[in-house]
């Protein structure tokens, strides 16, 4: 789909409103939208809603060999995806510049700030370390993707539990969640990005721009900070020129906002932890509010499956008999099987490549998980019988000797017997244009 363009009158209206310190949704210049954090059933899965912007985060882990330059550190991998449902302009397969920019900011915010302790992710130095993978999916784009994504990322990392590992000499044991409780990641601090949008060459400033405001802004300043007032990342894009005290003012605002957001995150994590410990229900099902008119829940429903067998039998007897049943598959060798038989080869007059002699079949056919129930195991370890008949001269040319081998009729389509393997192979009667020694087996 194409992105809907912004009309000129809309642009003018937004800019005029901002000059009068008014925002379309009624917020003040420094106000954030409502942040709502909900957790999924798995550890490390959460959804963050910043107003209407919605981001899904999932953390997963895997044991991998470490990077050669850092043999005692774990590996962190971050990936932000703009789902095609987030906005009409996002198409699958195309990487807009925006995506690269966002990924870079998230990486700098979470990786370079060293908020996750990578040394604790080492299991066996130089051989096995944990790779922590964070996947962020933008589900709805209503502005300020960076903030929502950074909050979702850090919340998911704090929520995640990795399997417990014990190392005894050379042996490494990874415990399943049932054997030993999974272990949280070691997080030093929580960096959170705060975005500022500038209008009219830096005169007006808005915190947490919505999608419309982002479209008309001149430039964006992103500051990532933790609650200890340490700046983790700062980036200014859009080519606006900022004065020093503007930047300092923004960083003070950031400190206030980050403190509020960090408190919110802590509360949400505690509530979820409490809920899980008390054995209550958790997961996205619980986060759907009951009072919304657009949401509906149904309890577990029983389905009456009495007389299902009778009904099924009725259908089968009334239905037409199934079409011709093909012969069951025959395993020639491992990886080569044949189902049914082909029709007679009609390429009689063309050059034929040498016929490969099939290897003698040995062994039973392997029973695989997807084997048809009707297939019996077949013992195909019989020697091959080849009947070579009299060569029948087809063409008058003296240079060619056309030999028809095994000119029997097409075999009937029945279940092949073990001793008539030659009927079931693909070596039907065909013409060969070469001298063939008749070998009697």
């Amino acid at each position, binding site marked *: 789909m194409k992105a809907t363009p912004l009309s000129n009158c809309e642009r003018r209206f937004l800019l005029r409103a901002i000059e009068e310190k008014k925002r379309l949704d009624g917020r003040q210049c420094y106000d954030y939208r409502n942040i709502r954090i909900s957790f*999924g059933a798995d550890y490390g899965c959460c959804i963050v809603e910043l107003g209407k912007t919605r981001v899904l985060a*999932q953390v997963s882990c895997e044991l991998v060999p470490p990077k050669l330059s850092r043999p005692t550190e774990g590996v962190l991998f971050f990936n932000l995806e703009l789902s095609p449902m*987030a906005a009409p302009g996002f198409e699958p397969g195309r990487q807009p510049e925006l995506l690269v920019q966002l990924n870079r900011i998230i990486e700098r915010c979470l990786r370079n700030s060293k908020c996750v302790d990578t040394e604790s992710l080492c299991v066996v130095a130089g051989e096995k370390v944990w790779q922590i993978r964070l996947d962020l999916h933008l589900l709805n784009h209503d502005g300020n993707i960076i903030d929502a994504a950074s909050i979702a990322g850090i919340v998911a990392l704090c929520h995640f539990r990795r399997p417990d590992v014990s190392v005894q000499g050379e042996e490494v044991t990874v415990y399943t969640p049932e054997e030993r409780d999974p272990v949280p990641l070691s997080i030093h601090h929580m960096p959170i990005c705060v975005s500022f949008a500038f209008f009219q060459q830096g005169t007006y400033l808005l915190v947490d721009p919505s999608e419309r405001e982002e479209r008309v802004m001149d430039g964006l300043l992103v500051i990532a900070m933790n609650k200890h007032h340490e700046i983790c990342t700062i980036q200014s894009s859009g080519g606006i020129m900022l004065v020093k005290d503007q930047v300092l003012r923004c960083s003070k605002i950031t400190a206030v906002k980050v403190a509020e957001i960090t408190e919110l995150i802590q509360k949400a994590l505690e509530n979820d932890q409490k809920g899980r410990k008390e054995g209550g229900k958790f997961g996205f099902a619980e986060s759907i509010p009951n009072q919304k008119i657009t*949401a509906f829940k149904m309890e577990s429903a029983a*389905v*009456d499956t009495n007389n299902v067998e009778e009904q099924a039998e009725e259908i089968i007897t009334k239905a037409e008999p199934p079409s011709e049943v093909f012969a069951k598959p025959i395993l020639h060798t491992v990886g080569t099987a044949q189902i049914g038989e082909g029709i007679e080869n009609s390429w009689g007059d063309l050059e034929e490549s040498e016929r490969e002699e099939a290897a003698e079949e040995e062994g039973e056919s392997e029973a695989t998980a997807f084997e048809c129930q009707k297939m019996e195991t077949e013992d195909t370890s019989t020697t091959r019988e080849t009947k070579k008949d009299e060569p029948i001269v087809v063409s008058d040319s003296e240079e060619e000797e056309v030999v028809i081998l095994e000119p029997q009729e097409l075999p009937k389509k029945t279940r092949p017997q073990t001793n008539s393997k030659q009927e079931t192979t693909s070596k039907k009667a065909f013409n060969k244009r070469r001298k063939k020694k008749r070998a009697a087996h």
Partner: protein
Amino acid sequence: MMAAKEEDKMAVAGDGCCLRPFSCEQGLLSRPDGSAAFLQGDTSVLAGLYGPAEVKGSKELPDRAALEVLLRPKVGLPGVVERSREQLLRQTCEAVVLGALHPRTAITLVLQVMNDAGSLLSCCLNAACMGLLDAGLPLSSLFCGVTCALDANGAIVLDPTTRQEQEARAVLTFAIDSAERKVLMATTKGSCSVEEMQQCLAAAQRAADTIFQFYRDSVRRRYSKS
């Protein structure tokens, strides 16, 4: 065999003849034309729909709408499993959407897996149908997805959890339409006999009644204050 037949009133999640608790929320995303989140027990899928909208030149169909389905897993890039499920969903949706009313347009359905705890394909089908309803696209009938698993004894388990799917001999998913409870799509994994498949289909049609009642109640609630 059908050991749980007499005790099918037991409300145990994923038990032989029970569907897990369902939840659905419609219209939860502001940008897509239609959106729905569907939850079956712990499995949840979010569907977002755009359409009928402008289509790029090569994909344009002169007589009907071009339907595209995208399924995104939670972790990693979409692979072959997602592609095959996309095709199944697309064929099901094309059978019900009256595409002839919107020629030379594109309808894009994006599904995001939020949690996979078994019966994922049927959850995707249900989310897709609720998304189509929310977007207001013209449909000839509704459809729903039901997954059945056949365990080692041959007992039918409806709406199986991940563990039940892994231990099952065969897992079958059906898309059932609402007009005459006919089959729109059937896909199986594993081996089962013809009789067993017909039994699963009959059980799925019974379960479809419950699901369609859920759709009706959910839409009735939504439009109750008008």
